[in-house]
């Protein structure tokens, strides 16, 4: 019989070890899943985790994709992690991502075809502000009316999807797009294009910004009193209030940060890799980022690594889809399992398993 015994201090080793354990467990469970689907599990795992990086044939395409896919995941997850640390659950990042993309794109579309070096920075600011403003809705409803931020932010994702549909069929529809529901293509608008900075690396301004934010968040969260207050709020809002932190302000700030980060990620995505606003350009980064944040232990460096790993599964998943005709959804299952195993192994951080014989009384 296994008994869980609370640890006096959480195990530092386990904090590092459990994400690795979770990845291994996911690979095993994933292997079983692939076997059930009638695929060779070892081949599938190899294609997902190794081929994108090391297979000559695919690496030239896949390696740059790694940064392209990891950047939005990491950027969104960084913002979410601040709130999650404080027990403020913004799960509507997908909606803020969409609104950021719309807001930033709208600026460019409004001044098209004006060329200016100021345009792109302006778009980033507009994207961030749009995401932030959208996140203010759950923040204000929470602080003023006590409405659950989880449900409100999630509902707003569906509203954002519909708003996007309204925009690309209405005001932001491309005048040269043969009436398709999509905006102008930013790849054909130099001042607004988030282009690759070095050819075939996948490096764009969003990647640079993401790395900057990783460092900034690391410093603020570990060295600054703000990071301390976030953590205190997460432990106990009562203790935070006693310490002098206003819980309402904390909610507004945390939702604001995560909204702004998600909004910027949306802008970088739409102005670069996606190229234009369409109803299908949001591919769920806002939800996958939740997994990234947890897998990275809500720590900026961890999130960076987790984001890269998750990006790898996206790319590897595409490869596997095309080589083994593995259904696209299996990668979603894979990511879901990862979060499950992570939460399951988490128990080792706070509890010590003790094996003991069942007593006979």
């Amino acid at each position, binding site marked *: 019989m296994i008994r869980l015994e609370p640890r006096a201090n959480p195990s530092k080793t386990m904090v590092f070890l459990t994400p690795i354990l979770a990845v291994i467990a996911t690979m095993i469970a994933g292997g079983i899943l692939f076997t059930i689907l009638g695929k060779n599990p070892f081949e599938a795992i190899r294609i997902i985790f190794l081929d994108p990086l090391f297979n000559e044939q695919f690496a030239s395409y896949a390696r740059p994709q790694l940064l392209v896919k990891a950047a939005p995941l990491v950027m969104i997850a960084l913002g979410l992690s601040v709130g999650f640390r404080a027990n403020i659950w913004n799960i509507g990042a997908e909606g803020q991502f969409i609104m950021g993309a719309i807001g930033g794109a709208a600026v460019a579309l409004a001044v098209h075809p004006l060329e200016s070096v100021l345009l792109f920075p302006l778009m980033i600011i507009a994207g961030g502000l749009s995401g932030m403003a959208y996140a203010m809705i759950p923040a204000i409803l929470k602080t003023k009316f006590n409405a659950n931020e989880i449900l409100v932010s999630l509902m707003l994702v569906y509203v954002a999807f519909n708003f996007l549909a309204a925009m690309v069929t209405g005001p932001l529809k491309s005048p040269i797009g043969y009436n398709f529901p999509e905006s102008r293509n930013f790849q054909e608008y130099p001042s607004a294009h988030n282009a690759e900075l070095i050819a075939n690396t996948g490096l764009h301004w969003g990647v640079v910004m993401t790395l900057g934010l990783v460092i900034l968040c690391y410093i603020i969260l570990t060295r600054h*009193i703000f990071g301390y207050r976030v953590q205190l709020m997460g432990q106990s809002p009562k203790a935070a209030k006693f*310490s*002098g932190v206003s819980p309402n302000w904390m909610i507004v700030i945390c939702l604001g940060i995560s909204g702004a980060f998600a909004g910027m990620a949306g802008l970088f995505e739409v102005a670069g890799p996606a190229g234009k606003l369409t109803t299908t350009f949001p591919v769920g980064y806002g939800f996958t980022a939740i997994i990234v944040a947890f897998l990275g232990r809500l720590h900026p460096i961890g999130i960076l690594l987790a984001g890269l790993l998750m990006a790898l599964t996206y790319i590897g998943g595409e490869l596997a889809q095309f080589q083994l005709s593995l259904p696209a959804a299996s990668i979603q299952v894979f990511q879901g399992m990862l979060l499950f195993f992570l939460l399951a192994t988490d128990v080792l951080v706070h509890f010590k398993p003790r094996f003991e014989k069942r007593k006979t009384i």
Partner: protein
Amino acid sequence: MTNLLTLHGLTKAYPGVVANDDVSFDIGEGEIHALLGENGAGKSTLVKAIYGLVQPDSGTMTFRGQPFAPSNPNEARAAGVAMVFQHFSLFEAMSVAENIALGMDNPPKTADLSKRIIEVSGKYGLQLEPSRLVGNLSAGERQRVEIVRCLLQNPKLLIMDEPTSVLTPQEVERLFKTLRQIQSEGASILYISHKLHEIRALCERATVLRLGKVVGSCDPRVETNKSLAEMMVGAKLATPKKTEVTLGEPVLELDGLNLKSDDPFGVSLKEITFKVRAGEVLGIGGVAGNGQDELMSALSGEVRVDPQQICLNGAFIGRESPSRRREMGLLSAPEERLGHSAAPTMSLADNILMTAFDRQRLGRRGFIKRPPTTHFAQAVIEAFDVRTPNETVHAKSLSGGNLQKFVVGRELLQKPDLFVVNQPTWGVDALAAATIRQALLELASSGAAVIVISQDLDELMEISDTLAVLAGGRLSAPQNAADLTPEEIGLLMSGEVAA
């Protein structure tokens, strides 16, 4: 006298601590038996074993001549053991009848149960209205619910864990009458307390526990408070002493403070008015749930009020934040340690930052300066004799007494002009309690004003210069503590006399 319950060699160990170490004693039929010991002596674990909530590692029990090893409370209840918990095992959003039904294994239909509740409560003088919500009851009434719940099952052994900690002296008297009536009907009572005069008044025999071991057994009726205390603590206790100081100017003035409570079961403060002068210890007594938490949060700044209602050193601070108030000299320590005055899973050094960051200048432009923070934590640990390996351990790994010394020390080393503390020695061992009381008195002697909110009347009588009582959200006029008798305070606590 034959034995109702015999314990033999009971041992229960938790990781890092032996809660009960080879405990043996017995309880006679129709006896009121005291289990005496400090916080952490192992009383709770022992009664949990008798009630089936904890299974001992070794040792045996015999109940009414039969081997007794309940594996859950239902078995214990079926055998005839009932228990009244210290932190009542009640459900606030449910009615009295529902609460009682939950404590019975085969409750009758609601209508019959209500009838029986009224019957039993009438017989023992414990008035109860079966349909009322428990959340709306006073502490004394809640205890009646627990007792009636036990009595409905005709127990042979009634366990009472610290039953008087939330009662007024008059309510204690009434409780004793009920307990003697239960005893006269043939049941035995195991009475757990650290209040010595109560044990001397009520119990016929006492078993004393210290650090998990039985250290003695006596007839409390022939002992003195002092001899019992020394048996319990195992050391001589010094009574805190106060050096006489002349009281100075008022440091804090409250003028007609009103505060509406947000909590459905909370208490609203009404027209609270008082002054504390430099060098004065103002004790605020009262039964729990009469506005203590609300008053505390209004003073600490967690809840804001009209600016003019609170005046600190001549400045109106009703709207100021807790951090601003700290900078102005008002420091505080609320009752609940884990999750309010301390963050459970943060290191002690990080817990320093909770209240000392601004006042002690532990940062620059918001960036935390680690070395001075660590030094301050070490200074608190040393000055208040906090038993801990070092300042990196988490707050929750400290014992209640040590954590309370740390929390109080954290504030006192910041040299407050006014210190407000709620329940300074609640759940704290006697030596730590003495240290804390002494420190509070020294703070006052050094010229600061001190407000002690406490439910422990003995404590208040010991350290207060002036005393006021909270009842139903109203505060009685502060009076010279030396002029008040416990009976007078008890009347104030019940809210029966107008302030």
